[in-house]
């Protein structure tokens, strides 16, 4: 059984002290330990941004891809070898700006991966510009007179995309986040977690969210009703819910693909006999 320590790497961590990414990293490690996953069977796919460095800091397979493309890469890794646990980590810029076009599709296909969005409401690594989740009015480097667009609602969006597992976490609530990641890994299908992640340098929201977040689980939330979940998604004021908004079971992408072999693609023999097919072309 792997230990937390064995999940460390030699790479030097360059996140700002206090950054919410640390909690997400820890929660992920804890989830892997507690679910007793083998490091060589876990793949973490990360986007470009502060969050993207996560792969360097955890001793499992990782692929640090390009900005916004976590979902297609992660989806195909899972299709190629469904015995792997595939976990995508994206920033809010990554996931909701440049990469938003992939979300509805990964969701409706119900690809069996976990998708964790490090939602710090800022482009961290490029020094603090507006993202699609930055609240209106906030002054950022690219909106020095205040953000002038309304933010998206990731939870409502994921619901409308028919994701089968829709959750929100908070980097200030490590235990709960660990729980969410474990549930997401266990979920058979596309598991989406938007994590409220304070960025101490560009948008420190620790206090704001500490004062407002509450756990849906504490209120006996029934996560099986999409319309109710949708309504809940718009609760964003003095009280901000975290937890699993919605969760259902349906066939995964692989289940539906015609001709998916009896074993992972990666185990299939490369040699095939094309004689029959060639004869069709005579």
């Amino acid at each position, binding site marked *: 059984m792997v230990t937390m320590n064995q999940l460390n*790497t*030699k*790479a030097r961590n360059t996140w700002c002290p206090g950054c919410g990414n640390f909690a997400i990293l820890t929660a992920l490690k804890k989830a892997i330990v507690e679910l007793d996953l083998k*490091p*060589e*069977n876990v*793949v973490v*796919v990360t986007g*470009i941004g502060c969050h993207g*460095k996560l*792969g*360097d800091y955890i*001793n*499992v*397979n*990782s*692929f*640090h*891809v*390009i900005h916004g*493309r976590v*979902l*297609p*890469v*992660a*989806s*195909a*890794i899972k*299709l*190629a*070898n469904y*015995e*792997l646990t595939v976990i995508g980590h994206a920033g809010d810029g990554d996931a909701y700006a440049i990469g938003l*076009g*992939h979300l509805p*599709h990964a969701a409706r296909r119900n690809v069996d991966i976990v998708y964790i969005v490090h939602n710090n409401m800022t482009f961290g690594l490029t020094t603090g510009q507006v993202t699609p989740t930055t609240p209106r009015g906030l002054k950022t480097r690219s909106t020095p007179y205040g953000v002038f667009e309304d933010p998206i609602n990731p939870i409502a969006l994921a619901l409308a995309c028919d994701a089968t597992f829709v959750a929100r976490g908070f980097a200030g609530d490590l235990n709960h986040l660990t729980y969410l990641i474990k549930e997401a890994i266990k979920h058979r299908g596309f598991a989406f977690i938007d994590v409220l992640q304070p960025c101490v340098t560009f948008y420190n929201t620790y206090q704001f969210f500490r004062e407002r977040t509450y756990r849906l689980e504490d209120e006996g939330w029934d996560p099986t009703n999409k319309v109710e979940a949708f309504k809940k998604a718009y609760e964003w004021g003095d009280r901000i819910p975290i937890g699993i908004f919605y969760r259902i079971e349906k066939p995964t992408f692989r289940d539906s*693909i*015609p*001709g*998916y*072999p009896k074993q992972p*693609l*990666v185990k*299939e*023999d*490369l*040699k*095939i*006999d*094309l*004689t029959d*097919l*060639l*004869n069709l*072309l*005579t």
Partner: protein
Amino acid sequence: MDISIIIGGEAGAGVMRSGYILARALVRGGLSVFGTNDYPSLIRGGHNAYMIHASDKRIHAHRENFDIVVALNAETITRYVDQLTENAAIIYDPKDRSYAEKLSDKALLVEIPMMDIVKEEKAKPVMMNSVAIGAAAGLTEYDYEILKSSILDSFPKPEVGEINARLAKRGYDIALEEYSSKFKIKVAPLEKDGKQIYLTGNEAVALGAMQAGMKFYAAYPMTPASPILHFLALHGPKYGIVVVQPESEIAAINMVIGAAYAGVRAMTATSGGGFSLMTEALGLAAMSETPIVVAIAQRVGPSTGMPTYTAQTDLMFVLNASQGEFPRFVIAPGDVKECFYRTIEAFNLAEKFQVPAIILIDKYLAESHMSTEIFDTSNIKIDRGELITGEYKGKEYRRYEVTETGVSPRAIPSTRNAIVKANSSEHTEYGYASSNALNAVKMQEKRFRKLKYMIMEMDKLNPAIYYGDPQAELVLIGWGSIKCPVLDALEILKSMDISVGFLHFIYLSPFPVKYALKYLKDRKIMLVENTYTGQLANLLKMHTGLTVDYKVLRYDGRPINPSQIVEKVFEVIR
């Protein structure tokens, strides 16, 4: 015997299918057949054509003039007036008689009551095309039974095949009885060893990928590459191949990269516009040293351009696409056979050197059918390079271990005792991001060290092939599908006792410098290319200093004709 037939009609009239069926019948008779289409980007109403060139000698391209025009509508009758050969015939329906009659001095008028026959047989109007091809076969006195076999095998539903065969027979009989005596060209099946297949470049690329052991294919439809998707979606599942059509080309190539990272052979295909969207991820494949194969079927640009027409204008783009510098393979097969074998080669090279390999074809090659001997698959080698699965036996696995060849042992996720860290950022041997200057030099040199070995390997693979007179003063050069018209042009020239050479470039990256110098030094060089600017000339000059003396260029979206080349050679030789 050499015959050229064009079948024309409205989009939606089944022009391409009936042309294919007729051509296939000729293929089954052992003839050498080339079939190509011409259609605008629309679904109904525009003019479609399928051209068949067949011969008892080996031919490689279409012909620009026609012995038989099969007119499924009035427009077709008049459209090709200037392309009729001396003894041409036009097959048409009585309803279009008024158009045909004007051409009575130019062609034999073969009036076949196609619509009436269809009505009598209670078939669908669109099936008049079967009557028409039957008539074409009858006119040339070809063997009806072979045509029938082609028809029956070309319709999935036997009853539909039966009707069409019946319709064809009626056209056949009238043409044979009433007109064939007046038509000079007779086509007869040959006695020949070995089966022929008749397929497009797209199909050959798809088959090559399957044979290479590709297990994952993701592509977004784009003319003229979509048929690869259709072919694989239809046939892949039987062979355990997963075929998906994701939300965009960006998704497609990133999926291919994910699958390849996980250890399966994977490919995508697209055309220029889709490839534009893939350029960023191409760099990801290069930097993360993930072996992928991308097939590109060029069409006319810039931008949307003319989606259903042909061009070779993406060469320089493909060679230089994506930011930063990295070695890549760009391989341009010249016919369907090369499409098949070179695609397999591309997969092997991609994995062996852990670089992206690009198959560069064009609409002409992608969508033209060619007859070719059935592929010999007995000797196919699959070389996965330094792939590690199961368990890593070394001490501490480093995905980007610096080696003499620049290639690092490649473990895949799930390998015991190996954690595989791939990275788009510059990275250490372990795969951790690093912007250290010395490390950057080490890694850039590691990646480029492959180039030397890639060239060595390439040089063994006939990267450029010389045809024609070895001593010729004038050597034609070209790449990709240009091989087709040039080889036919060479035959024509030979028959006129004009001997020229032809250096066909299959590899464009790495550039086969040795071959270029060997065959082109101190010769007059004529470039043949479907572009405006003559890209290979630039490339040649850049790599070898050699200058092209003459150019045969075409940029109206139509493939270059053998005769266009012949003319230019004439002009120059005089």
